[in-house]
C-alpha cells in the first residue's frame, strides 16, 4: 500500500482485482486510495497565490498602460498626452491585492483567513495614507476594501455556517416561503405610497421600477415563455410612446382612450416585426430584432415632419381620473376630495396606474400560460420541431408571442410618455433593450417574481448610485457581468411548471430550456 503521507518518487501499484480490494480497504479505513497527493504547505499555497496575483497584476499593467496610464487631452494645436502614473500604480495594486484576496479567500484554514485580513489591512493603510495626502483615491480603495471584506466574510461563513444555511433554505424555509412571496409583494406594492418613507423622490423611483417591471414582464412573454431572443424590445416601447404622444397631441384624445390605441398599434408592429423573423434561428433572430430597434430609432430621429425628430413631442397630456385633473385649483382632485393640494397626489395616481398596468400584464401572462396559446409558447421554447410535428402552427404562435409582448410594451411606452410629458428618440436606444433583457435574464427567464426582484435590484441600485454620476454605468456593466457569472440561471433558479400530472412542485431552472429562438 502506498504511503499517502510521504511523497514517493516511484511506487509500484498493484493492478487489477488486488488494486480494487486495496482501494476498498483504504476507503473503509478512511485513507485516500490514491497516492502521490501531497498536502501543500501554507507557504507553497501562499507562493502560488502570489504568483497568480503577480500574473494578474502584470496583465493589468499591460491592459491599463495606455488607458489609465495615459490620457489624451485636447489642447490648442492638437492632442496632448498626460501621464498618470499614480493612477496606473493604484489600478495595478488594486488588481494585485484583489486577486490575492480572492485566491486566498476560498481557503479552508485559518491562516488564509489571516492572510486575507492582513491584505485588507494593508489596502486600508494605503488608502488612508493617500487620503491624508489628499489624493482622490476613494473609489478604487472602497472597492478593494469591499473585496477584502467579502473575502473575509466568505471565508468565515463559507466553511462553518454555509452548510447549515443551505440545508435550512433547501428543506423547508425558502421553498414554502415562495408561495407567499407573490401576495406579499403585491400587498407591499399597493401600500407603498402610504409608507412613511415614500416621499416624492422615492415614489418616482417606485414608478420607474414598476415601469421596468412591466417591460420585463412583457419581454418575459417573448423571451421567457416563447423562447424568442428579442433584442429590439425598445422598438415597441418607442412605438407605444410615440403613438400615444402623437394621438394625444394631434387629435386631443385623453390618456384612457389613447392607451388601448397605443397598445394596438404596438401589437401591430409586433406582427410586422414577427413576419421576417419567422424562419430565423437564435442569433439571426437577435440581430434582426436589434436591427429593427435601431431602424425605429433612426426613423423617429429623422422623420421630422411627423415625429419632431430630435426635438421630440412635448406637451403630452397627463392622465385624469374620470375627467378629474390633478392640478391646483377649482374642480380638480384636491379640491373635490377636500385635500390640501400636493403634487404628490399626481405621483400617487401615476404609481397606481403603472401598478395596475403591471398587474394586468402579470394576470394576463399567468392566465395565458394556462390557455392553449401559453402552452404552445412554452412548447415552442422547448423544442420547435416537436411542436410542429404535433400540429401546432408555429407561425401563429410566434406572431402571437411577439404581438402580445409588443402590446404590453406599448402600454408601458404610453405610460412613459404621459408620465414624462415629453419624449424624444434619446430615450429609446439599444441600451434600454439591453437593460430590459438583462432584467429578464437576471431574474430568471419565465419567472415573474424574479423579474420584480431583478428590476428592484438593478434599477433601484442604479438610482442609488446617483452621486457617482460618472462611474454609475461602469459599475452597472460590471454588476451585470458579475451577477451573470455568479448566477447564470438568474436570481430565481426555480420555476413553476405550467402543466402538472399530479402534484405541483417547483422545478430547477436548468430543466427549462432557454430557447434557441427558432
Amino acid at each position: 500500500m502506498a504511503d499517502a503521507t510521504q511523497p514517493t518518487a516511484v511506487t509500484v501499484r498493484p493492478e487489477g482485482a488486488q488494486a480494487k480490494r486495496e482501494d476498498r480497504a483504504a476507503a473503509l479505513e478512511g485513507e485516500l486510495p490514491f497516492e502521490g497527493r501531497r498536502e501543500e504547505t501554507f507557504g507553497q499555497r501562499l507562493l502560488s497565490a502570489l504568483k497568480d496575483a503577480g500574473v494578474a497584476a502584470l496583465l493589468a499593467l499591460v491592459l491599463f498602460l495606455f488607458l489609465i496610464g495615459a490620457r489624451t487631452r485636447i489642447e490648442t494645436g492638437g492632442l496632448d498626452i498626460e501621464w498618470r502614473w499614480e493612477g496606473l500604480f493604484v489600478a495595478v495594486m488594486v488588481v494585485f491585492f484583489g486577486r490575492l484576496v480572492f485566491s486566498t479567500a476560498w481557503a479552508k484554514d485559518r491562516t488564509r483567513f489571516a492572510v486575507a485580513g492582513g491584505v485588507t489591512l494593508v489596502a486600508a493603510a494605503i488608502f488612508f495614507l493617500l487620503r491624508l495626502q489628499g489624493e482622490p483615491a476613494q473609489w478604487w480603495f472602497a472597492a478593494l476594501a469591499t473585496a477584502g471584506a467579502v473575502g473575509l466574510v466568505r471565508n468565515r461563513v463559507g466553511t462553518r455556517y454555509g452548510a447549515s444555511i443551505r440545508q435550512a433554505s433547501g428543506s423547508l424555509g425558502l421553498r414554502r416561503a415562495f408561495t407567499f412571496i407573490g401576495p406579499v409583494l403585491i400587498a407591499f406594492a399597493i401600500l407603498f405610497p402610504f409608507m412613511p418613507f415614500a416621499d416624492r423622490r422615492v415614489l418616482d423611483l417606485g414608478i420607474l421600477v414598476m415601469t421596468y417591471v412591466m417591460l420585463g414582464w412583457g419581454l418575459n412573454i417573448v423571451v421567457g415563455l416563447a423562447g424568442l431572443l428579442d433584442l429590439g424590445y425598445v422598438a415597441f416601447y418607442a412605438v407605444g410612446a410615440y403613438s400615444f404622444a402623437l394621438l394625444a397631441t394631434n387629435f386631443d384624445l385623453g390618456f384612457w382612450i389613447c392607451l388601448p390605441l397605443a397598445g394596438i398599434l404596438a401589437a401591430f408592429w409586433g406582427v410586422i416585426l414577427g413576419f421576417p423573423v419567422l424562419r430565423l434561428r437564435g442569433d439571426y433572430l437577435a440581430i434582426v430584432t436589434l436591427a429593427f430597434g435601431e431602424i425605429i430609432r433612426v426613423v423617429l430621429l429623422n422623420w421630422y415632419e411627423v415625429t419632431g425628430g430630435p426635438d421630440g413631442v412635448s406637451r403630452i397630456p397627463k392622465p385624469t381620473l374620470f375627467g378629474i385633473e390633478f392640478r391646483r385649483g377649482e374642480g380638480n382632485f384636491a379640491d373635490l376630495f377636500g385635500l390640501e393640494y400636493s403634487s404628490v397626489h399626481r405621483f400617487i395616481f401615476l404609481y397606481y396606474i403603472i401598478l395596475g398596468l403591471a398587474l394586468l400584464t402579470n394576470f394576463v401572462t399567468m392566465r395565458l400560460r394556462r390557455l392553449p396559446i401559453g402552452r404552445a409558447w412554452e412548447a415552442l421554447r422547448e423544442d420547435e420541431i416537436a411542436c410542429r410535428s404535433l400540429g401546432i402552427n408555429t407561425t401563429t404562435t410566434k406572431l402571437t408571442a411577439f404581438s402580445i409582448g409588443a402590446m404590453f410594451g406599448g402600454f408601458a411606452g404610453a405610460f412613459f410618455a404621459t408620465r414624462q410629458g415629453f419624449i424624444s428618440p434619446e430615450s429609446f436606444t439599444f441600451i434600454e433593450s439591453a437593460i430590459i433583457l438583462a432584467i429578464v435574464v437576471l431574474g430568471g427567464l419565465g419567472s415573474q417574481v424574479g423579474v420584480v426582484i431583478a428590476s428592484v435590484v438593478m434599477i433601484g441600485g442604479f438610482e442609488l448610485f446617483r452621486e457617482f454620476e460618472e462611474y454609475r454605468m461602469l459599475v452597472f456593466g460590471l454588476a451585470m457581468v458579475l451577477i451573470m457569472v455568479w448566477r447564470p440561471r438568474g436570481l430565481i433558479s426555480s420555476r413553476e411548471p405550467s402543466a402538472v400530472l399530479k402534484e405541483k412542485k417547483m422545478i430547477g431552472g436548468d430543466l427549462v430550456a432557454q430557447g434557441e429562438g427558432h
Partner: protein
Amino acid sequence: MEYFIQQLINGLTLGSIYGLIAIGYTMVYGIIGMINFAHGDVFMVGAFIALAVIVALGLTAASGIGMLALALFLALVVSMLITSAWGWTVERMAYRPLRGSFRLAPLITAIGMSITLQNFVQVSQGARNKPIEPLIRGGVELSRGTTAGGVTIGATISTMQIIIIVTTIVLMTIFSLIIAKTPLGRAQRACEQDAKMASLLGINVDRTISLTFVMGAALASVAGLMFLLYYGVVDFYIGFLAGVKAFTAAVLGGIGSLPGAMLGGLLIGLIEVFWSGYFTIEYKDVAAFSILAIVLIFLPSGLLGKPEVEKV
C-alpha cells in the same frame, strides 16, 4: 461616372474596415457559437491605444515619411498587442465561466462587458471626441470628367484608402492561410466542427478559443488604427456603432464563414455609401438593416452561410 467611382472607392474602404471587425465576430461565433457583443468595443479600445501611442510619439503631419511609417508601425504593433490582451481578458471574464451554459447568459455578460468597456474608456479618457490631424495625405486621381451641370469632378483614391484596402487584402490572405494551412487553423476548424471530439484528440480547446479571441481582437485593433487615420476622430461610442454594423455584416455574409464576413462587410459598406450618396444620408443605417432583413427572409443563413442541420 466619376461620382459613381468615387462612391465605389469610399464604399470599399468603409467595407474593408467593417469586414476586419466582422471577421472577429464570425470567428468567435464559429468556434463557440456565441455573439461577442463586446467586440465592437475592443475595436474602439484598439483605436484609443493607437491614438495614445501616436500622440505620445508626438507625430504630426510634418514628420518625415520614414518617421511616419516607423511610428505608425510601432502604433500598430503596440495596439495589436494590448488589444489582444483585452480580447483575452474579455473572454476569460465574460465567456469562459459560462462556457457550458445556454445561449442567453453569455449574451448578457457580453452586453455587460460592452457597457463596461465603453464607460471605462469614457471615464478614463474623457467623454469628448479626440481629433487628430490627417497624417497620411495625398492621393491618386483616377479620372476626371464633367457632370451635367458643367462642373468638373474627379474621382480620387487617397493614399489612406489605398493603404486600407491593401492592408485588408493582405490580412485576409494571411488569415485564410492561417486557417487553412497551420496547425492552429486546423485546431480551430476542428473545434468549430466538434469541440468534444477535438479535445479527445488532444487539442487544447480552451487555448484554441482564447487564441481565436486574441486574433479577432488583433484584427479589430488594425481596423481601429485604420479608422483613426481615415476619419481622424475617435470617441468612446464608435465601438457600438461599428460593432452593430460589423455584426450585421457578419450575419449578412453568413455567420461562421470567413469570406462571408468580408463579403458582408464590403456589402454593408457599399450599401451605406451608395445610399447616402444617391439618396439621403440619414437613413443609411435603415437601408443597411433593411437589406439584412430582406436577405435573411430568403436566405435564412446569410449569403455564404451553411444552413444549420438540426438533428432531431
